[in-house]
């Protein structure tokens, strides 16, 4: 907070630009103000996009690459805008920010645009040359099948694989970019659109001619197969996607298999299997599990058809009442119906021990499909494969007309997914749960914690914060960030999930509820509480039922390419290293993330902008005296459109009725609400009366004083107002912009000094702070310096707060002189609150 001091120091000592005339001043103001406003807008958008990105990342729900890409784009665009506007605002300073931005964005780009290495190897390989070692070229399915053939006692159909190299040759980067573009623009909830797009993409692939040399090679390998199986032999084309059958990620049944293909339809069938990658189910599944389309490469196995008599699947380990068994499902002819669940089938449970005795037959539409001998043969093969692949297997098999058993596929059996943790709505009280102390607010970061309440109001409070304590604050200021490593949870009366502190809380996995009023009053310091931030509930004491729910939710995206990529990208985006504007490291060269850049730009823009009134002096002749029924003098400098069109202006004064500045009029309603009753009685005969006189003495010629030092000046435009009040020994400033866009609207109030000693002055600013807190101002306090802010609120709301400030400027004058009197603070606070409430309840404008 020494930054606050610096800002004030600058005001008093800071360098000044040369004197400007009215037009130049107006221009200087409007220009700077535009940049500032745009910077604030970009700041809000960048932080919102960061919060969105983290929200999808930490939600435990699945998300798609398109969403990540959109958010990263929004973040980059807005952060760059902030840099541009800050540089304009500051007259070209901070060039280093551009370098930092370029560096960080290149890192993010390297992550987001990261592509799997292009496959290297032959386009087509006979199965006899395939093994698990080259599964990155052939896909898991074909690699496993080829490997199964090496097991003594297992026979597979002969054939070959069109590898990932072939796919990569057929589907060009141009195709991929266009397909990704069409998928990006899809609304994720638009199922109809998804189906239509899938259809388009598949047609696009099918309509693309196979490169001539690849087609030739395909025919050559087919001819080789014909030599063994007879001329015109039929083949099956089966998908074999990279990563398809790895443990934990199934992709089961999503892709295409085409049976009974002859020579003339080879190329077409090949393309259809490749196009199967873009089926709606496959796309939806990839999204859910966090695979980009480029993470999956489709390879195709071309296998001689088995002239099947009976086919089916077998699970090498199946839990049954009597213990583990082999489960066999069979159907007449080809086995595809079993896999798809459409054919009439028969199920057998077979003993895992030799000689694989038949245990049970379930559902017998066609009895006698498999003999005990055949069942034993299948069970034997399944167990051989289980043994070879070191885990339970899901095996596809066929008996041909001659009674020979072929294995068509073998893949690991997946462990069933855990049940997803259910989150109850906040208003339901679960069994064993106590009634809540408070509930509601915004879940800024999910999770559960238990600990003692600790209020943080000042930096000093931070030193004594207990480890594991529940931090309760009024505003989630970035200043509190250093405590997050120690806190068990953080609760704030204000704020949203988009703030810096919310970001950091999520980064630390620290549970947080923001925007829950009444926390400080309801939760006394030291009280033990349990918070369930995901459900936005706060319980008294240590609630065991709630704590029992603490477990990391299962993440369906865990380990997926999209998650890895998002994790890596977030590292360059959200961590906040620049916490303290007063620190020596608060410089562009120390910005390591985009969040750092936003923080830096925001802080510096405020400094650059708030110095406007101080850095730009103006020729006081352009100020006009306000004509209104109030004591003291008020001077107006019209920056732009602050005065009614057609107003009769003379050289020296302007009438209140001619002023149209929305924020100024609001402040004025507060200033003129009830007349100041003069200085407090006790000091009337002493020092106070001298002050009063100095303040009240009219200085008729505005050119005489030294710029703004002795008078009350309003710098106004239609939507802007900057009021500086320098009365006696204190200084107050109100600045506000009221816009139709919430992102642009704010109020800032600064107050410093007085004639009394430091202790009494400090008591006064604390009194002001207390009153302003009642009206939702965000307060920063240091000694006798007060900074109060409000932003992103609608017009009416802001106007009322400006009225409050107007009232306080008038009525807090010189009360510092009596601040040591017993009960004075309380008396004034009560009086102020009562009168302000009366003022606000009387109809305004």
């Amino acid at each position, binding site marked *: 907070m020494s930054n606050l001091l610096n800002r004030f120091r600058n005001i008093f000592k800071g360098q000044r630009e040369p004197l400007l005339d009215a037009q130049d001043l107006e221009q200087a103001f409007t220009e700077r103000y535009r940049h500032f406003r745009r910077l604030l807008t970009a700041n809000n958008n960048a932080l919102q996009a960061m919060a969105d990105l983290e929200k999808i990342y930490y939600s435990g729900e699945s998300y798609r690459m398109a969403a990540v890409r959109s958010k990263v784009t*929004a973040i980059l665009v807005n952060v760059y805008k902030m840099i541009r506007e800050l540089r304009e605002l500051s007259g070209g300073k901070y060039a280093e920010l551009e370098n930092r931005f370029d560096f960080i964005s290149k890192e993010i780009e390297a992550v987001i645009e990261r592509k799997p290495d292009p496959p290297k190897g032959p386009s087509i390989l006979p199965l006899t040359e395939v093994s698990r070692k080259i599964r990155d070229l052939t896909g898991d399915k074909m690699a496993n099948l080829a490997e199964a053939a090496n097991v003594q006692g297992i026979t597979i159909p002969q054939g070959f694989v069109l590898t990932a190299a072939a796919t990569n040759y057929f589907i060009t980067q141009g195709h991929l970019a266009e397909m990704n573009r069409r998928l990006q623009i899809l609304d994720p909830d638009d199922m109809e659109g998804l189906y239509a797009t899938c259809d388009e993409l598949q047609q696009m692939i099918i309509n693309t001619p196979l490169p001539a040399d690849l087609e030739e090679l395909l025919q050559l390998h087919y001819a080789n197969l014909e030599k063994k199986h007879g001329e015109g032999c039929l083949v099956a084309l089966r998908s074999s996607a990279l990563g398809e059958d790895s443990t934990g990620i199934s992709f089961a049944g999503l892709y295409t298999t085409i049976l009974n293909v002859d020579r003339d339809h080879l190329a077409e069938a090949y393309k259809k299997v490749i196009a199967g990658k873009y089926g709606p189910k496959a796309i939806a599944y990839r999204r859910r599990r966090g695979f980009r389309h480029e993470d999956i490469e489709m390879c195709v196995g071309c296998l001689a058809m088995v002239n099947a008599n009976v086919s089916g699947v077998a699970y090498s380990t199946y839990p049954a009442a009597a213990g583990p068994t082999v489960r066999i499902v069979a159907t007449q002819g080809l086995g595809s119906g079993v896999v798809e669940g459409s054919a009439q089938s028969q199920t057998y449970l077979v003993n895992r021990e030799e000689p694989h005795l038949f245990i049970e037959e379930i559902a017998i539409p066609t009895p006698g499909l498999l003999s005990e001998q055949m069942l034993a043969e299948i069970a034997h093969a399944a167990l051989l494969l289980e043994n070879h692949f070191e885990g339970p297997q899901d095996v596809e098999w066929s008996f041909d007309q001659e009674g020979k058993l072929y294995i068509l596929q073998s893949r690991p059996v997946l462990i069933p997914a855990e049940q997803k943790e259910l989150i109850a709505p906040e208003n339901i009280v679960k069994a064993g749960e106590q009634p809540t102390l408070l509930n509601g607010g915004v879940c800024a970061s999910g999770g559960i914690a238990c600990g003692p309440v600790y209020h943080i109001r000042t930096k000093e409070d931070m030193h004594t914060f207990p480890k594991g304590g529940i931090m309760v604050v009024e505003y989630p200021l970035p200043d509190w960030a250093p405590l997050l490593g120690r806190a068990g949870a953080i609760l704030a009366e204000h704020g949203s999930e988009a703030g810096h502190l919310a970001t950091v809380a999520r980064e630390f996995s620290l549970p947080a509820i923001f925007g829950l009023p009444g926390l400080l009053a309801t939760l006394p310091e030291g009280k033990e509480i349990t918070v369930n931030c995901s459900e936005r509930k706060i319980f008294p004491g240590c609630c065991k039922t709630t704590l029992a729910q603490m477990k990391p939710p299962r993440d369906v995206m865990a380990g997926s390419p999209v998650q890895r990529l998002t994790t890596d990208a977030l590292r360059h985006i959200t961590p906040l290293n620049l916490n303290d504007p007063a620190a020596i490291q608060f410089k562009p060269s120390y910005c390591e993330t985009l969040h750092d850049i936003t923080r830096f730009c925001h802080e510096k823009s405020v400094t650059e902008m708030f110095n406007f009134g101080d850095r730009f002096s103006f020729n006081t002749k352009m100020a006009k005296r306000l004509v209104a029924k109030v004591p003291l003098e008020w001077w107006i400098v019209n920056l732009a459109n602050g005065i009614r069109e057609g107003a009769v202006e003379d050289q020296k004064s302007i009438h209140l009725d001619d002023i149209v500045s929305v924020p100024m009029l609001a402040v004025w309603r507060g200033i003129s609400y009830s007349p100041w009753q003069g200085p407090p009685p006790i000091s009337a005969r002493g020092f106070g009366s001298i002050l009063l006189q100095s303040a009240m003495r009219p200085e008729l010629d505005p050119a005489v004083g030294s710029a703004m030092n002795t008078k009350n000046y309003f710098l106004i435009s239609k939507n802007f107002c900057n009021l500086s009040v320098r009365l006696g020994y204190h200084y107050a400033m109100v600045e506000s912009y009221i816009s139709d866009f919430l992102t642009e609207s704010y109020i800032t109030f600064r107050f410093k000094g007085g004639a009394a000693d430091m202790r009494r002055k400090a008591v006064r600013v604390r009194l002001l702070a207390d009153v302003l807190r009642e009206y939702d101002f965000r307060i920063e306090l240091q000694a006798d310096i007060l900074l109060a802010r409000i932003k992103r609120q609608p017009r009416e709301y802001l106007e009322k707060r400006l009225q409050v400030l107007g009232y306080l400027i008038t009525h807090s004058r010189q009360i510092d002189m009596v601040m040591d009197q017993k009960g004075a603070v309380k008396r004034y606070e009560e009086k102020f609150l009562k009168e302000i409430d009366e003022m606000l309840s009387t109809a305004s404008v």
Partner: protein
Amino acid sequence: MDIQKKILVVDDEPEYLELIGKFFQKRGLGFEIAGGCPEGLDWLSRADFDVVVMDVAMPGLDGLQCMLEMKKLQPPPEIVIVTGHSSLDHTIRGIKDGAFDFCLKPVDFDYLLEVILLAKKKYNESLLAQK
């Protein structure tokens, strides 16, 4: 705010054009539609627009190149890029070259409207500043 000037939408997707057209109509915003960059440039040479909402991933002329052409006009319109696919490098180049904003489809139209209104505001402010 002066919102009298029209918005020019440049995009090669008929469905998107239809949707955004309906959206603008409902809100009483003046707009014209161009199916590609040359048509867009043609519109700009004939009528007054303050904001161009354009895709940069269209067949033909490079979208950013097209934007630079549009920016040569006096006074230059503000360009809001709405596109289906853009590499990050491309995006950053676009924003450095003076695009007002860069959104990836699918874009929420209410959000897009606020972006367009802010772009109109900037256009008007730049005009004033020039005067």
